[in-house]
């Protein structure tokens, strides 16, 4: 088991390395000079001499392979470089903003799972009934509405019309816990809605599939009460694929919360990436992409380990 995790972590590191390399090369091979971008304000062309000096300072004049090696050496020693824009260490910015993004995702996952699993199970038990039709339609609709639409509409309803909640912004938890949670509610709820749709649909499909399994018939043949059949045999087995999907969806959300952060003015990691890409701030972009990939790959590993713990048929490294 431990050997397996060690092996998978190595594979994960390898994948992250490939991703970072690709991003690094892409950024450096495409047109667009960060020094020029930084120095040119509005429609005024930058002074060529100043740009040259800036390039030298940023280390952009060295051969590409040397820039790459320097960068990788930095990464290995835990140094992600400094931002082109403000000279601050990239790692500090990431340490500041990553928790904010994770907070939204975890809150959303908790809401979605807590509601989605019972809802999906109930729909499956009442297949083709009215409750199933309503739940399935709701799930389809929620799944089909992009987050920024949901976000805009909830702002319109809860902030503009009803004035129950603030339209967006951020206050640190340490400063004002109540206000922090209040501000968290809309973004987390918006992310939760689409996640809820996925979890509900998956739970429904999974329960329906398990209900057709022979071992459920065996459980009934034992004369077990309906509740026991459902709890021990149906829901328990049905949960395994649901948790897998939840894990993968959360992975997608890291870095996928750009739109929500934009809509609600939530200063998380994804929004930071967009502005970094815009400014061609190489160290920032590479640093953020690397953080996101590490988390993404790590989460996939966690999903596999959890799966193996729940399903004895999957054996890891044994």
């Amino acid at each position: 088991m431990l050997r397996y995790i060690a092996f998978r972590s190595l594979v994960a590191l390898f994948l992250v390395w490939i991703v970072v390399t690709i991003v690094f090369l892409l950024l450096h091979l495409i047109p667009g000079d960060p020094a020029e971008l930084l120095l040119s304000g509005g429609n005024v062309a930058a002074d060529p001499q100043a740009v040259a000096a800036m390039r030298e300072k940023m280390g952009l004049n060295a051969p590409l392979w040397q820039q790459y090696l320097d960068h990788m050496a930095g990464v290995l020693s835990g140094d992600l470089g400094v931002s082109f824009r403000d000279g601050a260490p990239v790692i500090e910015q990431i340490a500041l903003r990553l928790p904010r993004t994770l907070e939204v995702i975890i809150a959303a996952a908790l809401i979605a799972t807590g509601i989605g699993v019972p809802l999906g199970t109930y729909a499956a038990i009442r297949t083709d009934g009215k409750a199933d039709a309503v739940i399935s339609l709701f799930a389809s609709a929620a799944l089909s509405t992009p987050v920024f639409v949901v976000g805009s509409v909830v702002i319109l309803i809860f902030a503009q019309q009803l004035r129950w909640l603030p339209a967006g912004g951020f206050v640190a938890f340490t400063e004002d816990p109540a206000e922090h949670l209040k501000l968290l509610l809309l973004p987390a709820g918006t992310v939760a809605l689409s996640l809820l749709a996925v979890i509900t649909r998956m739970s429904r499909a999974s329960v329906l599939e398990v209900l057709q399994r022979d071992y459920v018939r065996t459980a009934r043949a034992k004369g077990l009460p309906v509740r026991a059949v459902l709890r021990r045999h149906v829901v328990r087995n049905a949960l395994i694929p649901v948790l897998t999907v939840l894990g993968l969806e959360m992975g997608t959300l890291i870095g996928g919360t750009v739109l929500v952060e934009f809509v609600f003015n939530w200063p998380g990691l994804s929004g930071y990436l967009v502005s970094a890409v815009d400014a061609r701030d190489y160290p920032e972009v590479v640093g953020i992409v690397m953080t996101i990939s590490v988390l993404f790959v790590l989460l996939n590993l966690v999903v596999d380990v959890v799966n193996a713990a729940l399903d004895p048929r999957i054996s890891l490294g044994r």
Partner: protein
Amino acid sequence: MKRSTRKLIIPGTIVALVFALVVLAPVLPLQDVRGMDIPNRFSGPSAAHWLGQDGFGRDVMSRLIWGGRASLFIAVGSALLAAIAGTMLGLLGGYFRGVVELFTVRAVEIILCLPPLLLALLVVAILGAGTWPLILALTILYTPNYTRVVYAATQQVRSLDFVTAQQAMGTHPMKILLRTILPNVLPPLLVQMSLVVASAMVIESGLSFLGLGVVPPTPSWGLMIREARGAMELAPLLLVWPSLALAGTILTFNLLCDRLQSALDPRAITAGGALWLRPRGPKKPLTPLPAPQDAPLLQITDLSIAARDLELVRRVTLSVRPGETMALVGESGSGKTLTGLAMTGLLPDTLRLTGGSALYTRRDGTRIDLATLDEEAMRQLRGDEISMVFQDAAASLNPVLRIGDQVAEAITAHTTLSGEALSARVVALLRQVGIPDPERRLRAYPHELSGGQRQRAMIAVAIAGNPRLLIADEPTTALDPTIQAQILALFAQLRRDTPGMGMIFVTHDLAVVAEIADRVTVMYAGEIVEEGPVAEVFTRPRHPYTAALIASVPESGATRLTAIPGAVPLPHAMPTGCRFAPRCAHATERCRERAPQAASPAPNRITRCLRWEEVT
């Protein structure tokens, strides 16, 4: 038209309408999409502008349709391009495996290491905003999805015998790929396609919303929502229209995808769920009847089972005495398994009893009619009075529960046993069914046992409640000969150990019947054709079907086997007269006209043949 196909009509029509609208946008009598009208900015709906005007006074409806054109062009275009690339990679990787797989499937999977929106963002940031960069970004993004789907389907198809047959035929691999494999991976590809169109629209609109997608003044739904947000308080409707259009279109594509999936995948669950979970009607009172002194354990009379209007089992009559083993034998489709399942109330939801009775004598000496019991009354009998052993033990045991727990559960369902006493009973049961080292094996999961051991565990589950009637449904069919012999010996042992237990042994194998049963009931096309003591029936069958069945077993030493021509009739095309007549060597005009009644050639024996006296 099938129900699943019919359900495609609504989303299919809407998708077609949306496509027609955006394709015809240039010829429709729409307002100029860029025509500004600043004085009338934010005007509500009017006769000239059905959906109102936006912040520059432009016609919203016109922009909505043109915006849909841009969104759909990008989404469909990238879905198609990604489909072509992904299909090629997936086909090659799935068919040739090895190095080819590494350079196709594994290579594109690196893309999956990046969150999708992030990837799109990177590409657009690099290439700049606009329609074509978006299409490229989305194509790169979705190629791995197709590759994976096609790869999985290809692997599945390539292991099928008809592909091996093509290889054995000496067909060129490329020809096999295009002619044999590609058509067979198309259904999942189609489903994936509609899924990707929906998903691509989400990402396209998201990027446009961020200002990284379609470049203004080209209209796009994402852009319209972005612009409307600024004026949310002034004109909330401006936000509503594009949101509705976007969500509605994506919803339709998702619906289409769902329904396409269930129409293309025959295994998809279309109806039912599980009716046993829903108690229906008021609880029926149980009416036990006193049983006569020598009543059989089970007396089935004229039992019929039907699926909607198709009768699958017709007027089955048979009885099982305590201690007796009755073999129910027949080919596939004969109704033997259904008859067994009906006795435990475990018939599939689509089937129901349509007539007859099944009187069962309980431990306390009273009789009840199994055919009238509701789910709860049936549940109390199951495992306690009547138990069942299923054919496929690997599928019939819960894969995530330990063997010991599954046996224990069967005990606790009807007793209050717990703790030490319970585990001692579990160990004793496992030992009884011949599982070696039961103290340790009870902690094993089903997949850790061999096929024979699993079937033994299945039998332990069935006998855990000391049932008085054991129904075994083809319990040895999937096993190897030496293991089958072990399980048959176990059943023989069980009969000796529990002399009062009756058994219904469902099988298609006549030789197994000869080894295990006292009496045999032969079923054909949903009817009983012959019944009697095993030795008598096998030495002198009194129905032409039984006789032909025995003669077709390659054990006689005859140089040529007796083959029964034709095939078992299907339920919706049952012959009017004797159901065996079309395949019977002795059939006459009379047989084809009249269904024969059961006749009794000797005490204890039954045959359903008009001509038994002449031909047997």
